[in-house]
């Protein structure tokens, strides 16, 4: 006979439990704070947003995927605001490009939120999120692993990697974007291109934010640098500006449409990630860049492998129950 709950929990263990009103579950407050610290730490260490790690970690803990994705968006809006302000003060934001990106990402984000609602109704949201993450993390992790292993092996010759990267994806996409209508000048970035390019890029990132709780910097930054040919300094500030207002809009829409933003969860993650970012930034200044990228690649690959394992190993119970919380 099943036991209602574990009566052997000590008082200390019980004190660590926090009830999340929207997720309608108890979580260990230390564990969730550590997730925030870990993601902030990676962010400070290697400059990635870390949204792609928060969502899978929360799902592993038992947080419903839609609450994990939505609260992750709110957390990113929180952590991106301070960084965006600093970039704005340094004049690193191209507001014209940023606004076109935002229009795209708001449209994409809105579409993504309603897509999430439809998938939730069909009971397929969890499947779609997990598969998107396996593809995304697998691709990013393996690419980073190969690249950083090569860099570590070639230690001392980092310039070769940069030259290779800049030469790489120029190609057809750039030519295609140059032929699109609505050619516009973006003076802050010193480029002239079709507004359709950043609009479509923003829309793609907006959909990813709604479905996966990620900021999308891993797509946006390389596309802006290599395809749209924007200066790197402006790219970082502008993508953060776009990320801030996209995640904020998605957070509002997820709360409005799916009632799925858990404020306690998001607040703990924000506090943890602020602390983690400060630690990561300090340590990052002391460690060599290629080794940092290798650490991140290993973390990403480990999360992807864990997700694949849960998909491939036959479950001990093939039925799963979700309670309709009222």
């Amino acid at each position: 006979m099943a036991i209602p709950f574990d009566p052997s929990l000590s008082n200390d263990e019980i004190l660590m439990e926090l009830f999340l009103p929207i997720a309608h579950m108890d979580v260990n407050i230390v564990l969730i704070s550590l997730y925030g610290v870990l993601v902030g730490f990676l962010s400070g260490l290697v400059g990635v947003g870390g949204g792609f790690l928060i969502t899978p970690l929360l799902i592993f803990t038992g947080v419903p995927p839609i609450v994990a994705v939505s609260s992750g968006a709110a957390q990113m809006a929180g952590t991106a605001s301070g960084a965006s302000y600093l970039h704005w003060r340094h004049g690193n934001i191209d507001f014209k490009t940023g606004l076109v990106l935002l229009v795209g990402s708001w449209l994409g984000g809105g579409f993504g939120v309603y897509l999430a609602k439809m998938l939730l109704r069909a009971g397929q949201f969890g499947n779609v999120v997990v598969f998107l993450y396996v593809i995304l993390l697998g691709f990013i992790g393996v690419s980073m692993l190969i690249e950083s292993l090569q860099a570590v092996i070639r230690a001392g010759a980092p310039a070769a990697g940069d030259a290779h990267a800049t030469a790489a994806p120029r190609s057809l996409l750039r030519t295609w974007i140059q032929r699109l209508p609505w050619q516009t000048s973006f003076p802050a970035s010193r480029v002239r291109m079709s507004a359709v390019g950043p609009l479509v890029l923003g829309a793609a990132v907006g959909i990813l934010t709604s479905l996966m709780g990620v900021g999308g910097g891993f797509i946006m930054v390389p596309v802006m640098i290599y395809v749209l040919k924007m200066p790197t300094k402006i790219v970082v500030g502008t993508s953060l500006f776009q990320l801030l207002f996209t995640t904020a809009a998605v957070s509002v829409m997820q709360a409005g449409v799916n009632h799925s933003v858990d404020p306690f969860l998001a607040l703990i993650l924000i506090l943890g990630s602020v602390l983690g970012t400060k630690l990561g930034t300090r340590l990052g200044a002391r460690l060599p860049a290629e080794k940092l990228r290798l650490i991140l690649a290993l973390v990403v690959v480990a999360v992807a492998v864990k997700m694949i394992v849960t998909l491939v190993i036959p479950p001990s119970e093939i039925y799963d129950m979700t309670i309709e919380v009222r």
Partner: protein
Amino acid sequence: MTRGLRCLFLVSAWMLQTPSWADEPLVVAPQTSQVNITTDFAGSDLKAIGAMDGPGDLIIKVVGPQQEATLSRETKLGPFWVGGDIVKMAGAPSLLFLYATAPIASILPPAEQQKYGLLLEGVPVRIEPQLTAHAADDWRKAFFRLKERQGYYHEDDRAIRVFGNRLFIADMRLPGDLQIGTYTVETLLVKSGKVVGHNVGNFRVRLSGIERWVWNAAHDYPWSFGSLFTLAAMVLGFVLNAIPYRRR
């Protein structure tokens, strides 16, 4: 733990009618009329104290408010196990605890168990969409199995202590994650395979404090709640990240 984040459940008084001890074979009284549960809550102990008019067995049934659940069944898609069919299970109680002084099957015949709803897997549950009897049976069994595994359907024949064949104390433990609503507590006195005493009471569980406020705001005013909270998160992030740099 921040006091402001505390979750408060109120378990209100069992609305017991209190018959005189001389007339009734069974009298039950709750020891606690109100329980305050905070965020560090991982379940609550409730006690019921009562008296019976002589040797016999006791059964206490705690039934939670009805709750809708969605059940999904994983299927194999190539090498992957993914969520496949889903059904809605409606009409079943969120919680069903059966406490007794001995295994219920040994003190009451099946017909009586059925009559008083004392069979864990005999709980009526409505499955949507309608399925064939065979298919519905698989889902029903899975539902009860998961409910038992998660600790919401539970039978315990050692939770009631009887003193001198007259007085009894029932120690009942409620899990931390409770459905909000009214819970009924039914106490049965059994002698020679028959129910000779019957007492029904109830208590209410409601979310209160900041958790209740958050829940209501997120559901009653979702857009305002989402906008204000997101703005608050942005301001918090700004204060924590940007202000220390400004001072440098």
